[in-house]
């Protein structure tokens, strides 16, 4: 037994930089698919951001806007807002489910690749790391695009409704704050959606890589 301990080591590593490199490469190679997965995040975050921004603009205009605009805004009821929040939460949930589905498909497709990596000495947590990173990057990219898109759209809509006042009194700080919140939320949700698929991938037995059929 003592001799065994000397002969067999435990250290197998996957540096973070290498993991990032592999997962980014994975996304780039399957760009079309990654974009479709990311588009779910883009849409959900765009919706969220548009609600954030419209809320922020409305509040600012209620305080500092001209009388005409303020009267216009008083007619927007609180009931409407509650329904919007409900819709946003739903859209985010749908987005998480979409990501989980896309990542599960990706795991099935890469059965052999994962098995091979395990034969080469990858630990379960390397596989988990790679899948979470991949999903996280798609989430980050999707939320940035989505937040910009949603923010921009809502600013335009507001300017149509309330006039150019929107631009002169634009709540820049509020916009930045909500932007960061939306991006973080989108990335975190993408990672959450990938947890189950990543776990499924990691639990795969390396012997499956040996099988010649799919």
């Amino acid at each position, binding site marked *: 037994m003592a001799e065994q301990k000397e002969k067999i*080591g435990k250290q197998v*590593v996957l*540096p973070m930089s290498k993991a990032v490199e592999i997962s980014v*490469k994975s996304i780039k190679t399957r760009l079309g698919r990654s974009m479709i997965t990311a588009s779910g995040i883009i849409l959900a975050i765009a919706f969220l951001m548009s609600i954030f921004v419209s809320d922020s603009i409305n509040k600012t205009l209620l305080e500092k806007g001209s009388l005409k605009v303020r009267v216009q805004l008083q007619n927007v009821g609180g009931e409407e807002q509650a329904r919007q929040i409900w819709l946003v939460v739903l859209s985010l949930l749908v987005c998480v489910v979409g990501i989980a589905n896309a990542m599960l498909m990706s795991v099935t497709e890469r059965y052999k690749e994962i098995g091979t990596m395990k034969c080469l000495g*990858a630990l379960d947590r390397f596989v988990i790391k790679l899948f979470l990173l991949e999903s996280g990057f798609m989430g980050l990219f999707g939320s940035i695009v989505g937040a910009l898109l949603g923010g921009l759209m809502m600013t335009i809509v507001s300017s149509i409704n309330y006039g150019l006042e929107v631009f002169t009194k634009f709540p820049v700080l509020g916009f930045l704050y909500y932007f960061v919140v939306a991006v973080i939320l989108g990335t975190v949700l993408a990672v959450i959606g990938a947890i189950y698929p990543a776990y499924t991938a990691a639990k795969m037995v390396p012997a499956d890589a040996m099988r010649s059929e799919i």
Partner: protein
Amino acid sequence: MAEENVVRTRNVKKVFIMGNVSLEALKGINLEIKRGEYISIMGPSGSGKSTLFNMIGGLDKPTDGKIYIDEVDVAQLDAYELAWLRCRKIGYIFQSFNLIPVMTALENVTLPMTFAGMSTDDAIDKGVKLLTMVGLGDRVQHKPVELSGGQQQRVAVARALANDPAIVLADEPTGNLDLKTGKEIIDLLRKMNKEKEVTIISATHDLKMLDVSDRVFWIRDGKVERVERRADLDLNIGTVEGE
């Protein structure tokens, strides 16, 4: 050193349980493989060949009996130690090549070195050297889809040798290749076996493979039916001309 057993199995049994039925895939296998040998495992499908093969590779554990790789009992190892073993002691070659499609030839070869903790620069140097050795020095930046089957298998051979393993396990390495390319891969494996003194164990149906093997294990019904040395084999397979 030359007589050291790199693989030793003692009365290895494996039972698969499927629902109410239990199937005895291996019924007590005893074999010893010495360092630097070139071994072929032959047997019809369903003979337990693949099961035995996976166990020698540390990919599966026996129901009963012991398997020693480099005199280490595989059943005693935890997940980390098994990963370490797969990373450094064993190189795998698959029938369908199994290169990681998103990586270049060089990245495929350096991946096991990364797992083993080698620095990127050292890994690249060694990877290029290995790829040159298998005759792909000018194709290091190619992706698997840009390589022919034979070239992909050469990359796989280089990858299997990445961490200077004690054993290379090859599962039907010529199964997806035409005769001439298959012969080239066999010659390459034999060359690596001689030059690097790495033990090669392959499961195969390919008679060309038997021709270079030091010993052949015939598996039937979960048992070693017979073991033949090359000198005892009466092979007349002729030569294979490519063109």
